């Protein structure tokens, strides 16, 4: 166990990881009240959660969207949302 006043004390975060929302650990750790670009998969064709602004419809049940990070819990709780994926940075394969 960490020693008292250890600069590397591992603390458990009260809110556990999202179940429906995937992304890198750095994204999960971000606490900023920012806007996110995401890909959303839903159960019901044509459904768009109120918290999300759809940008491109890939299919009836898959679309890209942007939303405020603070509204992610709404998508987590929404029974019509299957999963939400935060964008990952891409690099050139040169």
């Amino acid at each position, binding site marked *: 166990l960490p020693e008292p006043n250890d600069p590397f004390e591992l603390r458990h975060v009260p809110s556990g990881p999202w179940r429906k929302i995937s992304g890198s650990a750095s994204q999960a750790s971000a606490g900023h009240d920012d806007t996110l*670009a995401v890909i959303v998969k839903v159960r019901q064709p044509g459904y768009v959660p109120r918290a999300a602004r759809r940008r491109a419809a890939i299919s009836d049940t898959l679309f890209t969207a942007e939303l405020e990070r603070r509204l992610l819990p709404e998508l987590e709780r929404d029974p019509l949302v299957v999963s939400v994926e935060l*964008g990952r940075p891409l*690099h*050139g*394969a*040169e």
Partner: protein
Amino acid sequence: MELQEANVYVEMEPRLQAAVARHRSGHRTMATAATSPDEIGVIALVADLDAWRSRSDVREGVTLGETDRGTLVTARVPIGRIDAIRQATEVRSMKAAQQLSRMLQDTVREIGAGPGALPVGVHSTGGAGAIVGVIDSGADFAHRNFRHLVGTTRLLALWDQSGPTTATSPAGYGRRFSSDEIDAALRTGDPYTALGYAPAADTANEQGAHGTHVMDIATGNGGGSGVPGVAPDADILFVEPALSDIAWQGPGAVESVFGDSVQMLEALHFIFNEAGERPCVVNISLGTNGGPHDGSSLVEQGIDTLVRQRPNRAVVIAASNSFADGIHAAGVVSQGGSADLVWELAQVPGESELEVWYSGMDRFAAEIVAPGGRSLGAVELGSNAEVTSDDGRTLLFVSHRASDPNNGDNVLGVFLDAGVPGPEWTIRLHGTTVGGDGAFHAWIERNDGAQSSFRPPHDNSHTVGSIACGQMSVVVGSYDAHKAATPLSWFSSAGPTRDGREKPELSAPGQDVLAAHSRTGTGVTRKSGTSMAAPAVTGLVAVLLGEAAARGQDLDADRIRAIVLASARTDPPPAEAWDPRYGSGRVSVPGALKQLA
């Protein structure tokens, strides 16, 4: 821009003239492995070998052999002395050395894309009738390789995702440039300023835009460089990904980042929408390491969905260049047992991140061991943990998610801030409950400025990029087409996917490829990577789609994949089985066209 007459010895071979003209104008060449600054390599035919060798302004190379007009030799000579040497009585002729073995034509020749190599009875050549889409950074629309003979653009449209948003912006952001707008800009003296879009200028680390180079391999027409790409008659759609259209939090703000996976999917949606019912193949020479590597991510589901929506669509993706980076590890954890992932940080400060994926039937605990061997504790499945500094900064963050909704697997993510000490951290996986096979795979995310890796020996399998594991994409590894044995490129990533599927599907020339150099009008530059291999296959698919259209055939994505795989050449790789890096073999344009019959 003004055309000026150059007073250079007019009977001189053109490349030597150019070298002399550049020298006189004050340009100085860079030293290479074979030449000093302000020297140039030449091939000369000399009448008197002794006189040639005695010249103080000739640095002798090799004697190539005798001809009926004299001796053929190579040498390095000062550019300022070219005039004098060329006119010496012992010199019959002299030409600048050409690096023909490194030109894009080697790609075209080796994969059989030249007109002379195509099978008899082909109705269409060069991808005419098809569209090549490119999602990449830096489209030099002014380069002659992407313009028609009359000077107009070959681009049907260009979406700059970083451009100013308008009411008609695709997906609500950036700017779409039409071919008319591009042509109007091309008629001005400064087309980049006129259009409000330009590929980035060269830097010390980057010579030429990645996207221009990639686009040239797939579909350049040689109008500037003189060497066409694989599908020179196709039309072009290009999307320049935004570095970020909205704020992106995390370790992404490095120069090699070309947008993110959401913007990439929107770019693909845009290209297929613009193409409509026309045959279209899209090249994605981008990638990343983190992800499930089983095709279940939403971006891969999105790619598969778009490809399946209409016939005559395909997506080609670079396999990635991570084979030698030590970014993958795998193992098995037994019930009550443990396995260590030793994570070596770069010697320069930088953020690091890894992901561990394992079966949803297993339950691991992740113990975090700091440098020096002191345990910070364990993070159970279904919980998050962090280490913060006194000022609240996150130094370490652990997310241990159960049952990912897309594949049911568990995933452990660990993020280390640039400020944490090295040299190594250990992630110790404990088998709390092993109801499945206990197997895990781990990947370290890419960070070009400070790439961390697992402690050797490395397991370099499963290093194909994480957006390249979908069901419908065609994924391409790289080999060196300049060598007779066509050896694999040292960097070319290996499959299979985490769920055991065979990716990359095939391989193509991707090493030392000379293709269009942005902001030069006609020039070329050398780049290596699976980024350069993928567009050779993209060009092949464009040729295939163009030919199928000319024959009135529709090709769905399964058929396109089947044709490309069946036509791949072996030896190398051995014919018996799929190879983790070559895939089913080396790309062949004639082979693919024959499959259409």
